[in-house]
């Protein structure tokens, strides 16, 4: 059925949301539109409570629209408290952060990330934004998940150009695959049903064998409805430029 098909955009947002668990403290930060939408989707589509905190200081906020900036004060609209930057970092380092969404430019097979530089740090080919919270949050959050809108050997690498953050991602979502940590390594959990396992393996720069992986279950009606309501005009999907290739 066509309505059950994934787009690259819906695949990433929805599969990030599927990492969210009941009653946990879940955080999304700056430069993180897709996890922001995943948290808002999960609030609408799933029949369980979780605490959603974000970099705008919101705690279970009620935004009246979805902002273009994932640090927008709109994400604190309707909050009953302000839990600001120093607070959520301290919460994380003392072990109170259950799930953190953290960005990455390159990811290796141990789930370490580079968000700093392409090339040599001291003679950069491309200076990247920097890791923000990553170096402190990735090793101290109970679980962290990341995402990339590109699935290629230059993004999912054997060897990072620079280790910005270590400690290992619990999960990784690309437009065509979902990875999860097993015995300290990222392994394939499922792949986009319109792609083949061989293609996913070929486009992954760190070694994976695909054992135990299955095609990703289609989006549920509630997941689809929740995402559609968040992106009524399709502007977020368009801006994200996600393709399966």
């Amino acid at each position, binding site marked *: 059925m066509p309505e059950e098909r994934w787009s690259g955009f819906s695949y990433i947002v929805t599969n990030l949301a599927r990492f969210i668990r009941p009653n946990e403290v879940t955080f999304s930060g700056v430069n993180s539109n897709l996890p922001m939408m995943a948290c808002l989707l999960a609030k609408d589509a799933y029949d369980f409570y979780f605490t959603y905190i974000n970099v705008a200081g919101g705690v279970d906020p009620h935004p009246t629209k979805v902002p273009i900036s994932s640090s927008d*004060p709109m994400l604190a609209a309707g909050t009953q408290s302000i839990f*600001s930057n120093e607070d959520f970092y301290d919460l994380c380092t003392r072990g109170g952060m259950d799930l953190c969404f953290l960005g990455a430019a390159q990811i290796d097979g141990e789930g370490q990330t580079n968000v700093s530089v392409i090339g040599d740090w001291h003679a950069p080919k491309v200076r990247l934004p920097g890791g923000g919270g990553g170096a402190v949050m990735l090793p101290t959050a109970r679980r962290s998940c990341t995402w990339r809108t590109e699935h290629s050997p230059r993004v999912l690498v054997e060897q990072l150009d620079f280790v910005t953050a270590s400690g290992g991602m619990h999960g990784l979502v690309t437009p065509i695959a979902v990875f999860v940590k097993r015995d300290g390594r990222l392994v394939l959990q499922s792949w986009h049903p319109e792609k083949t396992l061989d293609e996913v393996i070929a486009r992954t720069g760190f070694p994976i064998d695909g054992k135990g992986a299955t095609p990703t279950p289609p989006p549920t009606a509630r997941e689809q409805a929740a995402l559609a309501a968040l992106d009524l005009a399709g502007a977020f999907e368009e801006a994200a430029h996600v393709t399966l290739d």
Partner: protein
Amino acid sequence: MVLSAKDKIVSLSELAALITDGSSLALGGSFLHRGPFALVRELIRQGRRGLELIKQSPGYDIDLLCRAGALRRTRAGIVAMEGNFGLARWYRQAVESGQIELEEHACATITAGLRAAAFGIPFQPCGGLQGSALPALNGWKSCEDPYGSRRDVWLIPPIAPDFAIIHANAVSRSGDARVLGTAHWDRIMTRAAKKVLVVAEELLPDESFRERPELTLVPHFMVEAVAVVPRGAWPGSCWPHYEIDYPAVEAYVAETDSDLSGHLAAAPEARVSANA
């Protein structure tokens, strides 16, 4: 007779004139939100050079300073224009070409350094960082817990900016600064810096501050001087007064040469003085 504190209100150009070439500046806000952007633009109008910017998440501010050639160095955790705008192009070029020196931090290590300065101690332990290449890059030292937990911790040296500059929602005449919504890292910046300057949306009477003292982030005695600049956080947001001016940010990002005259002239503070 009870004397009140002195009047700290100055013009924006007088506020910028307090900052000398080569100063280190901690700028409040985060990315495009509630940054002291009118002051940053005024520093560029006045031709300031050799500045250092200290901020966990700079974006428009650092890009502007790089584009103007006003920056020599930065300590930062993550730099981007955010939203759909991606990397901060002039910043990226400045680092790649060696025009500015970058001391790359995690956001929390900037905060730890500011805490060391604010607490008056020679370093501040910071959680996390295990396995990251950042400590070696910056020469940070670690030590084992002297109380016997056998856990190692990284020690971050103090960061004491010459100035903390924040954009507040409101000020009193004597410099009390009220911030609504998240304070980002403004509070610790103002405790760590040698001097605090405030730009504010509006001036409110002392009675208003007496009614809600818990909304005051910085008490007047810590504040050097204040300028009242409505829409001073443009093209960013200042909740609940206004949101990001996206067309203005798009126009800024679309410009390809370093000439900032059009952008600076379009800023609210320039339009007010042109009309005055």
